[in-house]
């Protein structure tokens, strides 16, 4: 059983928790107001990961972000995975629990990637069914994150934003709006990122993600890869500002999962998000820290 009371996540900046930063987080003050974990990394009984997570959870609100539930799987979600997720949630009482608008499981094996779905009525039904079962089992509302994608299907019946909003309304879940993913997909599939954001009802958005991505050349053009391995780029910060203008402030997470930087570099990214959220100049941030 948990020793924690569920703490709501404030509409301030948080970062993805990395083991490399455990010690610094406990020792240094920063503009990081909350943490998010990948659920699967903590699906174990104990040890050093849980030791530090416990200490950090005592001081900060926590969000649990699943990457392996495979809500888009035609054959449903894995019950063992759901059980492990519930155990983790009961242990840490997170303020938010989220997953993805994607699939990663085929039969019994897991592909460890956020794979794209066709945007069809059949796919809406699959997601609504799996999300409803998940929310019922966990006895709480979850958030669903829009993916980055590298191809679109030519038989899509909906745009991604229509598809996402439709599912959220039918399943009664919220949206985790990943602004970097909107940007990456808008470049990869030539759609208007601002228009995407404008078509998401603000009351459905419960959290925002920001991250860095990379650019690879492809034939005569380029493709953007959502690798979470660098700082947030200027275009994504601008799209974030547009998002805040449209929907208001929301808990905002900086994700940096590959080539993990020093704690100070990551905390600096959170400080920039903090500035956007609180409308402070960089000078104010320095004076306050």
């Amino acid at each position, binding site marked *: 059983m948990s020793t924690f009371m569920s703490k709501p996540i404030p509409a301030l900046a948080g970062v993805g928790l990395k083991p490399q930063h455990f010690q610094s987080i406990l020792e240094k003050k920063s503009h990081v107001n909350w943490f998010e974990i990948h659920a699967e990394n903590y699906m174990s009984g104990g*040890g050093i990961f849980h030791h530090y997570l416990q200490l950090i959870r005592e001081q900060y609100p926590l969000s649990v972000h699943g990457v392996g539930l*495979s809500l888009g799987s*035609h*054959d449903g979600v894995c019950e063992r995975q759901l059980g492990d997720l519930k155990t983790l949630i009961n242990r840490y009482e997170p303020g938010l629990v989220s997953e993805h608008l994607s699939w990663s499981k*085929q039969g019994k094996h897991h*592909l*460890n990637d956020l794979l794209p779905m066709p945007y069809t009525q059949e796919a809406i039904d699959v997601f609504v069914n799996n999300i409803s079962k998940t929310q019922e089992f966990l006895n709480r509302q979850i958030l669903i994150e829009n993916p980055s994608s*590298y191809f679109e299907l*030519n038989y899509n019946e909906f745009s991604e934003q229509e598809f996402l909003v439709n599912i959220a309304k039918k399943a009664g879940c919220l949206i985790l709006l990943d602004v970097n993913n909107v940007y990456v997909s808008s470049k990869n599939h030539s759609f208007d990122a601002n228009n995407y954001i404008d078509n998401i009802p603000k009351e459905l958005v419960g959290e925002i993600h920001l991250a860095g991505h990379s650019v690879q050349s492809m034939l005569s053009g380029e493709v953007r890869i959502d690798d979470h391995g660098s700082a947030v780029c200027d275009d994504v910060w601008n799209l974030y500002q547009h998002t805040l203008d449209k929907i208001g402030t929301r808990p905002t997470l900086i994700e940096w999962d590959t080539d993990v930087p020093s704690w100070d570099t990551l905390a600096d990214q959170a400080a920039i998000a903090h500035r956007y959220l609180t409308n402070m100049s960089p000078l104010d941030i320095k004076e306050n820290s």
Partner: protein
Amino acid sequence: MKSPNIQIPNIKEFQLMMDENLLSTDLAPSSNDLMSLFETKLSDDESSDEGKLRLAIYRNNVIHSLSSALGDLYPVIKKLVGDDCFNAAAIEFVRLEPPQHAALLHYGKSFSEFIIEFEACKNLHFLSDVAILEFEYNQAYHSADVQSFDPQTLSTIAPEQLGDLTFSCHPSVKLVQSMWPIDDIWHENQKEQPDLINLDDTTGVHLLIYRLGLVVQLVNLDENCFILLQQLKQGMTINQAWAETVEQATLAQRQLESEELSGMLGYLFSLEVFTAFNLSA
């Protein structure tokens, strides 16, 4: 825009086609059907190349993320065989045995069996046992936190009943026997510049792997003590476990005096491998 000649798959068919093309060494026969479903603004010739490149991003992501996860779970094996050899082995393993659970902390148990069959590693006979050690080390690292028991509490037990005691082991406790000095190999390879170990001059080990507090311990036990703990771990009473230990020592013509039992138990208590004792009626 839909191509007029292509049958639109349902979700199940789409996911099966993707799966086939993500784990396979080469693109599967279904790849052309799959790629014909990708939206494109290019001409037919160019769009075929574009489709392959777009699919390749997912193929690379899947194989790269799983083989790197395996590399994180087996850092010593990776160091021993080198990055190139390890990556080749890991990719082949991932294709043969993709994870059965999304939590990769527990992935790759059978890598120890796979690696001895992998062509480039066939003459490295010790690799398999080092892989077993790495897997169990990692399991111990993440296993549940349980307090060890205080041996002082045994003073409440009447002396004539001590032999009927059973013990619960810490959930991290694993016993691994090897004809190779896998603990030395493991320790040496934690260093930036490992020293060479001459395997001709070494003896085997009877390793106890468990976690004390937050730190995983590797203890090379005396063979008799290893057998005693093995029996106690299975739930035998002290008397039963000792009888079995004596029998095995006799069969192997190993020296073992009856007075050694209390010393061995005292040593195991000092390692804090037990979490509780039980006196069955």
